[in-house]
């Protein structure tokens, strides 16, 4: 049996992604936790292996080669706890591999419980295929037939405030019960009930024998004006893992290695963002992961988390459906080269068949990065609707201020240059005000999140150890003046006393060098009532630390205004990449 993490030294965290499985080693160095190394292997959840274990073992073997340490015995089983200098003290795992879970959501009112349960579904790798509420115009038997036809993996049921509606909820339970009754036993879905707790006992009696598994969680809508998703979100994470254990080979064994510390990747990432938001109290903190299985947007503010997991915006097998959510023109606008629209469309379909393939030519890389920008844009716009009102925003509305913005995902972290990676982030997220862009280039956050549940010291020390890459300090003024009009004047004074003065025009992107190890004070004087986060026309100063690229001033407008003329737009896209170092 694995030992407790509380008194453990070394921690091995594995993340099973849709394409890549990573094994990350954390260990104590000079009295504090440090990230030591990462091993990688292709994920083996798919045919012909159909067992995540093979990819996990190969990633650990790769880690063994890198570190010279031994974690597996001759039978390729994990040695836990450490014995005679070999093995690992603790093991945690996260998983995002596998198709999105086909989910039917059930509630009462569209604007109340259905909205909340939809938000809950969006906190994991779910594909909502139907929703059933009291205003559903379909007859009960049509709702039953729809469930039978869709064969969902999961049914999420909400509805009724505590001490509120009982009969209406029971009617919905009857429909779900009948649908489950009509399914063959092996096809029955898992059900998670998150509604009126007064009905929970009835739900258990009615549904427990008719479902693959029945889980009850506290009401996500305890009263009309209160939404509390967090407890249900944890229960949903466990429910997701149950479904994965039943449907994906090797997950059961992974769970036994992890001794229960196995979480959905997005949930673990969200846990870290919430945790970090308790430290960075002045603004919200944003975590973005652009993965093959989904794009995940986690925004935390003073311990409150909004987590959006969007499989429809993943860079893998769902890409063939991307044009249902966006137009080809919206992807083409991000290209720095003249590439026919048909080539981009073909690329989406080809990549959906081979999600793990990698762009080799300059043209393919340009398409891949244009798609990444648009996918990120779509995910951010969707997530922005779900970010609570108490997040601080520019007075003109729009996307909230965040500090820092933590980004992961191979398309960005493995870009040919860090400048390309940063430009994808700036174009996709379009942050506002002053912030720091941080790269999680080894995808550490989910592993840290999984470990944090039982060892809160590890993530704190890893964050402090500088395991993430500070990519850029960013100033993004908001202004609606004409292109070319000066909107920001300022100076950067380094700790050594060097002073750089600057004036920025609307529509430009500029960089002030401030490399890693340096620090300075940035004095900002907005012009023409532009807003850099202190309010329209208000001056202010911020402390900045050196980063890989330096202080980036993105005055290209929000949303970024791109020329409609192809030649001019290609030129601008190329110029911006060049500005950020190529």
């Amino acid at each position: 049996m694995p030992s407790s993490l509380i008194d453990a030294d070394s921690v091995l965290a594995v993340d099973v992604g849709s394409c890549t499985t990573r094994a990350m080693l954390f260990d104590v160095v000079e009295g504090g936790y440090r990230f030591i190394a990462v091993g990688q292997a292709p994920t083996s959840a798919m045919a012909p292996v159909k067992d995540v274990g093979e990819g996990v073992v190969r990633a650990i073997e790769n880690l063994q080669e890198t570190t010279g340490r031994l974690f597996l015995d001759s039978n390729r089983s994990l040695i836990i706890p450490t014995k005679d200098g070999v093995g690992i003290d603790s093991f945690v795992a996260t998983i995002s591999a596998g198709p999105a879970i086909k989910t039917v959501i059930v509630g009462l009112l569209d604007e109340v419980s259905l909205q909340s349960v939809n938000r809950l579904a969006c906190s994991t790798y779910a594909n909502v295929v139907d929703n059933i509420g009291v205003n559903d115009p379909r007859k009960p038997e049509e709702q039953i037939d729809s469930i039978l036809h869709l064969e969902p993996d999961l049914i999420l049921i909400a509805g009724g405030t505590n001490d509120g509606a009982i009969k209406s909820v029971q009617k919905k339970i009857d429909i779900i019960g009948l649908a489950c009754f009509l399914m063959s036993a092996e096809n029955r879905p898992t059900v998670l009930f998150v509604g009126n707790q007064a009905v929970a006992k009835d739900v258990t009696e009615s549904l427990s024998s008719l479902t693959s598994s029945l889980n009850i969680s506290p009401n996500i809508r305890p009263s009309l004006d209160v939404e509390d998703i967090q407890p249900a979100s944890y229960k949903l994470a466990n429910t997701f893992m149950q479904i994965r254990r039943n449907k994906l080979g090797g997950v059961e064994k992974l769970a036994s290695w992890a001794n229960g510390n196995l979480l959905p990747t997005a949930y673990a990432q969200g846990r870290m963002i919430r945790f970090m938001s308790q430290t960075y109290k002045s603004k919200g903190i944003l975590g973005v992961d652009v993965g093959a299985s989904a794009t995940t947007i986690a925004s935390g503010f003073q311990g409150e988390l909004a987590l959006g997991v969007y499989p429809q915006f993943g860079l893998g097998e769902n890409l063939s459906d991307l044009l249902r959510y966006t137009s080809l023109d919206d992807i083409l606008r991000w290209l720095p080269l003249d590439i026919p629209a048909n080539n981009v469309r073909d690329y989406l379909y080809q990549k959906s068949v081979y999600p793990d393939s990698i762009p080799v030519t300059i043209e393919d890389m340009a398409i891949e990065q244009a798609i990444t920008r648009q996918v990120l844009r779509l995910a951010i716009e969707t997530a922005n609707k779900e970010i609570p009102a108490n997040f601080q925003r520019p007075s003109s509305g729009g996307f909230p201020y965040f500090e820092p913005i933590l980004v992961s995902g191979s398309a960005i972290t493995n870009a040919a240059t860090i400048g390309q990676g940063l430009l994808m982030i700036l174009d996709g997220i379009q942050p506002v005000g002053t912030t720091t862009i941080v790269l999680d280039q080894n995808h550490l956050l989910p592993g840290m999140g999984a470990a944090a549940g039982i060892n809160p010291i590890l993530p704190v020390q890893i964050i402090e150890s500088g395991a993430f890459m500070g990519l850029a300090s960013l100033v993004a003024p908001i202004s609606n003046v004409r292109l070319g009009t000066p909107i920001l004047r300022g100076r950067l004074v380094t700790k050594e006393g060097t002073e750089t003065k600057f004036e920025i025009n609307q529509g430009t992107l500029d960089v002030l060098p401030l490399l890693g190890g340096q620090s300075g004070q940035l004095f900002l004087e907005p012009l023409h009532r532009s807003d850099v986060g202190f309010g329209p026309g208000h001056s202010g100063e911020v402390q900045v630390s050196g980063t890989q690229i330096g202080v980036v001033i993105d005055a290209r407008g929000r949303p970024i205004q791109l020329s409609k003329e192809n030649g001019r737009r290609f030129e601008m896209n190329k110029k911006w990449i060049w500005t950020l170092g190529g």
Partner: protein
Amino acid sequence: MLAPVIHILPMTTILRQRLLPSVGRVLVRLNQKVAPLDVVAETNLGKEHILVDIACLLGISPDKADQLIRCRVGERLTSKQLIAQLPGLISHSVSSPKDGRVVAVGGGQVLLKIGDPVFELRAGLPGTITRVIPERGVDITAHGTLIQGIWGNNRVDMGLMLPVPQLNSPRDVLEADKLDISLRGSILIAGHCSDPHALQVADELPLRGLILGSISPELLPIAENLHFPIMVTDGFGHHPMNAVAFKLLISNTKQEVALNSTSYDRYTGSRPEIFIPLPAAQPPQLAQDSVEFSNGQQVRIRRNPNMFEVGTLTNLRSGLSEFPSGLYLPAADVLLESGQKVVVPLVNLEILG
């Protein structure tokens, strides 16, 4: 590194499992020979129901309604057959709105299943039943030529395989004016299709099947609704069919082939495939699904440049190789059939075997 494998084999043994979506009846026996269109198992997949709310219709409590309901679970009802009757001076009754079978009774309600559509599981290939999985399906084993693809429209058929008229190279395009009545009932080979009209004409003939190297993505909604199976061997856009598949297909023209255009699923491993049954004195080895990259393997390139070209892996490079996109990746040297030597990232290769 484990390599993805796609089968393009002149002679092999394949084993395919065919399973019902839910419990049903297996209709074949062990060692029975089957043809692709033979139904090997079936199940009732009725997914249309009518809920008759007796309590509500009679204005009584569910408990009282339950006492009045005259039908039982499993019973077949005809349209207008009496389900419940409330006695009294003026009697009220509820009848079955349609023909159907009672699947649930309770809570003052009766649930009727309307119609009883049977889902028929077809063999999909000619072979021998080598395992019967009671109530669920069968394993079928067969020997012959196997060519797998990457996209299919979920149909099964068998027919004489012919090249599209004037087909000279794997680049040649399927055009409507090349299709005439002499091709009716055949399974056609062409390099590419981007003309929706050609697909409509093919459906009107009708063809028994179509094998394409590539297809334009905007044709997929049409292709999905055609009555005959379509399999795409290589990918999307305008590309020639890979040379190995093309040669193998052309060398087998005028043969009876089975085309199972099941959709590609990377998790289950199901792929569209063409199977050409051949006699085997000695059963050949089962097609291998999983191998490691090694020198001498025949490989197909799945990304630009040289997309869908076939070659031989001549050297697994040590360390990382740099590519024009600026990325550094584990790679291999590949000798293309044209004689050109190229360096390809391992993740962009798949084994033909």
